[in-house]
C-alpha cells in the first residue's frame, strides 16, 4: 500500500455554528468526508476509524475564521477538488477556504488572534481605556483546570493589539496564548471585565458580545500558522 498523503484544510465556522461544540464538530465532519467521497485514510485495526485531527478546539460561543483539520489520503486528489467536494457537504456557516500540504504541526501553534466586540449602552466612561489598562497589567483570575481552581496571573498570556471605542461599545483585538500548556480561552477577557471593572452583559438584547478567532500564529507571534 502507498504511503497515505497528509493534507490540511483550513475552514471557517461562524454564525449559529458557534454553538456546535468541538466534539460534535469532530463527529459530524467524519460523516461529511464520507459524503464528500474523499479517499480518506482509516486507522488500521479491529475497528477502523477515519483519521481526522483538528487544531485548537473552539469553545461554544466563539466563531472562527481560521480552523484547521488534517486528514490523510489513500490516493492523490487535487486540492481544489477536495475543497469543492467538502464544501458541498457543508452549509454557508462553515466552509473550507484552503486545502494544502502542511509544513507545520499543530503543536507549533503559539498564539491566536481574537476580535471581541462588546456592545452595550451601559459601558462605563473611558471603557476602552480601562480595558486596555486591565489587559496590559498583572491580572489575577481564578482559572479552572482539570486539577482544580487556581489563581493565575493571565497577563503574560495576553498581547493586546487594539482596544477602541466604537459607536456600539468597544472592540478589542488581542493575541492570546494558544500553546497547549497555556491556552487562554478568550472568555477570560470578558470575565476579567466583569470581575475587575463591573462590565456586565445582563440584557441579551442590548448588552452582548461576540468573539471571533481571526488568525493563528507560531510562538514568534509574527509568522502566520498554516
Amino acid at each position, binding site marked *: 500500500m502507498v504511503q497515505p498523503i497528509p493534507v490540511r484544510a483550513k475552514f471557517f465556522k461562524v454564525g*449559529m455554528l458557534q*454553538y*456546535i461544540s468541538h466534539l460534535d*464538530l469532530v463527529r459530524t465532519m467524519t*460523516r*461529511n468526508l464520507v459524503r464528500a467521497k474523499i479517499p480518506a485514510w482509516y486507522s488500521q485495526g479491529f475497528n477502523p476509524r477515519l483519521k481526522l485531527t483538528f487544531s485548537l478546539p473552539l469553545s461554544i460561543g466563539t466563531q472562527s475564521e481560521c480552523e484547521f483539520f488534517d486528514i490523510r489520503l489513500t490516493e492523490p486528489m487535487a486540492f481544489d477538488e477536495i475543497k469543492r467536494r467538502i464544501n458541498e457537504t457543508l*452549509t454557508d*456557516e462553515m466552509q473550507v477556504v484552503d486545502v494544502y500540504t502542511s509544513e507545520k504541526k499543530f503543536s507549533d501553534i503559539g498564539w491566536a488572534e481574537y476580535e471581541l466586540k462588546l456592545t452595550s449602552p451601559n459601558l462605563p466612561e473611558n471603557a476602552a481605556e480601562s480595558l486596555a489598562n486591565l489587559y496590559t497589567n498583572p491580572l489575577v483570575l481564578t482559572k479552572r483546570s482539570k486539577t482544580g481552581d487556581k489563581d493565575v496571573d493571565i497577563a503574560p498570556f495576553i498581547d493586546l493589539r487594539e482596544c477602541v471605542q466604537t459607536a456600539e461599545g468597544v472592540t478589542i483585538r488581542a493575541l492570546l496564548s494558544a500553546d497547549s500548556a497555556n491556552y487562554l480561552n478568550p472568555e477570560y477577557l470578558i470575565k476579567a471585565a466583569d470581575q475587575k471593572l463591573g462590565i456586565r452583559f445582563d440584557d*441579551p438584547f442590548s448588552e452582548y458580545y461576540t468573539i471571533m478567532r481571526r488568525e493563528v500564529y507560531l510562538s514568534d507571534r509574527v509568522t502566520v500558522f498554516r
Partner: protein
Amino acid sequence: MEQLTPKAAAERLLKRVEKPGRYTGGEFGQIIKDKSQVKARFAFCFPDTYEIGMSNLGVRILYGAINQHPDFWCERAYAPWIDMEEQLRKYNIPLYAHESGDALRDFDFVGFTLQYELCYTNVLNVLDLAGIPLLSSQRGEDMPIVIGGGPCTYNAEPVADFFDVFSIGEGEEALPEIMRLYVNMKEAGTYTRAAFLHEAAKLDGFYVPSLYDVSYNEDGTVKAYTPRYDDIPTRITKRIIRDMDKAYYPDKFVMPYIETVHDRIILETYRGCIRGCRFCQAGMVYRPIREKSVETLDRQARALYESTGYDEISLSSLSISDYSKIDGLCDTLLQWTDAAKVNLSLPSMRLDSFTKELMDKISTVRTAGLTFAPEAGTQRLRDAINKNVCEEDLLRACRVAFEAGKNQVKLYFMLGLPTETDEDIEGIAVLAKHVVDTYYDVYRGVKGRKAPTVTISVSCFIPKPFTAFQWEAQNTLPRLLEKQQYLRSKINDPKIKYNYHDAEVCRLEAVFARGDRRLSKALALAHEKGVRFDSWEEFFNYNQWMAILDQCGLDPSFYADREFGEDEILPWDIIDCGVSKAFLLRERHNAYQSTTNRNCAEQCTNCGANKLGGERTWCSRSL
C-alpha cells in the same frame, strides 16, 4: 427590542442555555424554500427534546413527503428544554420553527406527532409557548390548524379538545391531501376554519373531534358518538400506504450536529407485524403487513449512505427477523456495506430466530450485549399473551451469544399481565437463573472467564386500545408495587441485575391510554400548574397528577384498573384501525385458555385488516 425573527432573537439567549445546538437549526439537509413561492406552511412539532425528535423516523419521512410538493413547506420544531423555555418566556419570544425562524403561530398548519401519552403536557406547553390558544374552540381565523398524528391518535380522546383534526394512520399521502384541500379552499375564497374542518372530516382518515358529540351513561361509560353532520363518517378508517415500494421514502436526512438518540440510517423494511402478541398495540394498528422488496431497500440504503455518510444502517421494523427475505436482504446489503465500513444493525430480533449465521452478519453483536424479550416467566403465561417463544428458544439464543464471547444479556419482561399468578412472577427469576446456568454450561472448565450479567428489565402491563387486552384492568398501584417486591425477593443471584419501571408512570400511562375526552380538562389544569416533560423522571410527579385528576372530578381507577365491559362503547370505537373488535374479543378469550394463535405467515387468523388491502403482504384474502 430591535425587529428580529423569533429565532434571531433566541440566538441571543443561546449562551445562557445547555446544549445550544438544540435550537440553532441550520443543519445540512434542512429544506429552505422561498416563502413567496409557497402556498401552505406546515410546522412539524415533536413534543420532546431535539435529540429525541430528530431520531424519529416518522418525522423524517413526513418532512420529506410534504416538502416534495413545491408549493408546500414543512419545517421542524421541538419542545425547548426548561432552561430555554425560561429564557423564551422571560423575553417574550414565541416558539419558532427551525428552518425559517418564524413563529409557529404564523404557520398554516402546526402538526404534532403523538408518540407516547406522557408527551401530552408538552403539546400544551408548546402551543402555549407559540402563543396559540390551547383549545380548538378558542382559535380564531388567523390561527394555524392544529393537527395530530402518530400512534396515540388511535385513541386521542384525552387530547381531543386541543386538536382541530387528527390524521389517522399513515400520513405520507394524507398530509399533502389535507394541505391541498386547504390551499384550494383559500384560493377559492371558501376557507373558514369551520368550513375547512367540515371538508377535512370528509377526507379519508381524518378525524375532526369537534364534529362528533360524545354522550355518557350514568356509570361514566360512553353512550354514543354522534356526528354533527350527515355527510361525515360515523367511524374513521385509518389510512395506509398500499404499496411500500411506491411509497415516498427520504433519500436524504437532515443531519444533526449534536448527538441524537438514533444517529444513523434507519431503513424501514416493512410495516405491520405478523405476530399478534395480545398486549401489543403496534402489532395490531399497523396491520396489514406490507413489505418493501429487497431491491427497493438496497436502493434506499445506498442513497441514504451517499447523502448522509453515516456508518451504521439500522434495519427497522417491529420484528426484523420476520421480514420474509431477511437473509437475502442482509446478503445484498453486505455486498457493499463491508467495503464502505458501514455496520448493519438489527435491533428488534426475536429470540426464536436468532442464529449464529445472522449474528455473524450484524454489528450490534460486535459492540453491545444482546437483548431479548420473553415478556413472561412461564410457558403458560407466554402462551396466554401469544408470545410464541419457549424457554428452549431463549436458552439456545443465549448459548449462541455466549459461545460468540458475549457475557451480557438483557431480558425484557412485563408484570401484571392478565391471568398472572405468583408462579409466573417467580418464573421470571427462574428463567434468568437458567440463562446464568447456560453461560456456565458453555464455559464449563474454562478458567479466567468473566462472570456473566443477566439484566432483567421489568415493566408493568398497560392495557392499550386495539389489543386483545384492551378490556383488561391494570393491576392497582399497590398490587404492582407488591409484585415488584415479590420478584425482587425471588432473585438471589448477584449475577442477575433487576431493573423495573416506575409503576406510577405506568399507571398514569394507562389512564391516558384508555382515557376519554373528559381528561382534556385534567391536561389543561396540569398545564396551568406548569406540568411538562412527564416522561422525564426528574419531572414526573405522581401525587400532583392524582390531585389534578381529583380536582377535575376524575377517577384514575375508572380508566386504569377497571375491567371494561365487552359490550361497552369504548372511547376509541370511533376509529377503525382495520383489525376488528370481534377478532380482539376472540383473542381475549383465547388468552384465558392459554391458547396460542398462528402468525400471519402460517395462517390467516381473520383479524380483518386485510380489508385495507396492501402489496407484498401475508394476507391470504387481500382485496
